[in-house]
């Protein structure tokens, strides 16, 4: 890992700190209440706040997770560097794409 990846991973981690706290809070609240799809959606749909919240979350977690995955594959599973970059990018992009779909599903009107 070099400086660029390191910074990207740490910055995305820092961005996620409040997001994860909030996310955990929401989950605990939701689990205690026993949620249905309708309930989730009624809270989130059409909300610019939740759109931005989850949008930023998806981008950060994709960047962060992709770099993290790269590290683990390289160190623990000894992948070579070309494969590594390919997997990192693929994972990151797929994750952003899937995440975007999820966000739009949850927050779009």
């Amino acid at each position, binding site marked *: 890992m070099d400086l660029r990846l390191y910074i990207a991973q740490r910055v995305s981690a820092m961005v996620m700190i409040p997001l994860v*706290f909030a996310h955990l809070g929401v989950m*605990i609240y939701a689990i205690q209440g026993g949620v249905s*799809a309708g309930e989730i959606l009624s809270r989130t749909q059409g909300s610019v706040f939740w759109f931005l919240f989850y949008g930023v979350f998806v981008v950060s977690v994709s960047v962060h997770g992709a770099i993290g995955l790269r590290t683990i594959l390289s160190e623990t599973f000894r992948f070579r560097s070309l494969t590594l970059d390919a997997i990192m990018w693929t994972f990151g992009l*797929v994750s952003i794409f899937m*995440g975007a779909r999820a966000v739009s599903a949850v927050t779009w009107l």
Partner: protein
Amino acid sequence: MIKTHRNHPLWYAYALHRISGLALVLFLPAHFYVLSLALTQPERLDGFLHWTEIPAVKFAEFGLVFLLSAHLLGGLRLLALELLPWSPKHKTLAALAASGAVLISGTFLLNAV
């Protein structure tokens, strides 16, 4: 006596951080997939949410929450350790913040289960 150089807290913290990170990464696509069902097939999402009432699934879910908070706290610890200037005062503050966070979220979690 375990014959290894790894037998100390910092190494275990590292291992836990790595395992939790990996688990989260693997879980992420599944999580996104389930949520995007809301767009296409809301009834299947509902079905899924019912499914989560099953104890085994609930336990797995709990595991994820645990891993996420573990990873979060490990990450906080690392960020503090690496990036904060280390006058002893700062270090104490960082440690307090991290352990405060452990307490708060721990309480929440215990309530949740």
